[in-house]
């Protein structure tokens, strides 16, 4: 009965691919721009982001199981199972990329100039903060691109957001 040996590896492989694809697509689909996010769908998307590594581990195990199951069945089945494993790994790898930080790259090592040395035009707007004697200014034109900056002013760690 060839179908009884074929079906389990196909089902395992498809399950793996679908699980990895869902892990990749759900947050991107829910949090695409210019549309509202309802509370439930947002909760689901954030849940998928939080538990993504576990979902991908599950998908990977399913895909490996499919390969193991397909291996004795000959080259066609082996290639099919390996193709699904590669699809699973591909979708899983893509889902680990933070697209928001691809669009708006972070600034892990911010650099500063003295207030008098800055080449900004006089009327450029900055977000100014003072902690004790330390004062720092973050140009809005820079922050409107990066959006998030982790900094320390004086002895106070602050998150600058725009």
């Amino acid at each position, binding site marked *: 009965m060839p179908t009884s040996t074929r079906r389990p590896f196909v089902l395992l492989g498809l399950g793996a691919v679908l699980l990895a694809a869902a892990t990749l697509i759900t947050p991107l689909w829910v*949090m*695409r721009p*210019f*549309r*509202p*996010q309802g509370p439930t769908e*947002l*909760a689901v*998307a*954030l*849940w998928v*982001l*939080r538990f993504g590594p576990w979902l991908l581990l599950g998908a990977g195990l399913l895909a490996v199981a499919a390969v193991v199951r397909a291996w004795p069945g000959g080259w066609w089945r082996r290639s099919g199972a390996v193709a699904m494993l590669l699809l699973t790994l591909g979708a899983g790898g893509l889902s680990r990329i*933070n697209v*928001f*930080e691809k669009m*708006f790259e*972070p600034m892990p090592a*911010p*650099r*500063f*100039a*003295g*207030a*008098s040395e*800055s080449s*900004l*035009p*006089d*009327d*450029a*707007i*900055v*977000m*100014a*903060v*003072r*902690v004790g*004697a*330390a*004062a*720092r*200014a973050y*140009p*809005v*034109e*820079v922050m*409107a*691109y*990066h*959006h*998030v*900056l*982790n900094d320390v002013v004086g002895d*106070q*760690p*602050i*998150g*600058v*957001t725009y």
Partner: protein
Amino acid sequence: MWARTIQGKTLTFHLAGIHNQNFLMRDEETGSFWQQVSGECIAGPMKGAQLERVHNDELTVARFRVESPAGQVLLGEPGRMNSYERDWEPGIDPLPTVVDTSDSPLPPRALVAGIVVGGQARAYEASRLEAERVILDEIGNVPILLWSGGGRMLRAFDRRIDGRPLLLAPTDAEHLRDADAGSLWDFRGCAIEGPHARSNACMVTLPVLWDYWFDWREYHPATSIYGR
């Protein structure tokens, strides 16, 4: 701007998502998600926690140099200069919004300065602040001063000194004088002449948030609008 230290942990934030056109941050340390506009943790192990706001002013860099000559200014990333735009707001204005504001008197992308005093929120239209550079107002029972230095440069103060409200009027573009004691006040909110200057009095600054009307109203549904 937010203090990154909360419940004994110092968090490192990353841009991580979008929620009704306001972005979400995720911290490396706990993996929790935080709403940028409110500082509230909305998902993850720290759900329900609230970041503490750090006071900041939007100033022209010229004003910053005057007030903080020893201060530092963030430099842009050398490879990113093409991504920095000085006048990006006209490009954003026609973009769609996803929050319904049709039952309110302002268009969704009207720029407002928002202030919260004692839990009461009020929005000041940018066009109004441009026309009325010095506004003496009261939110709840707190007498406040809004002082626009032009454009986005705006400071708000609790205008009480020793419990007595100041009645302030401009003398020139840089200074206000109070009617009772006759002290002269500068844009930092500090007295530089007159009886209050002798005690080095400064008014307490209040946080100002520049925002689009749709976003401000989303997070402050009971907000009033100055003059409406």
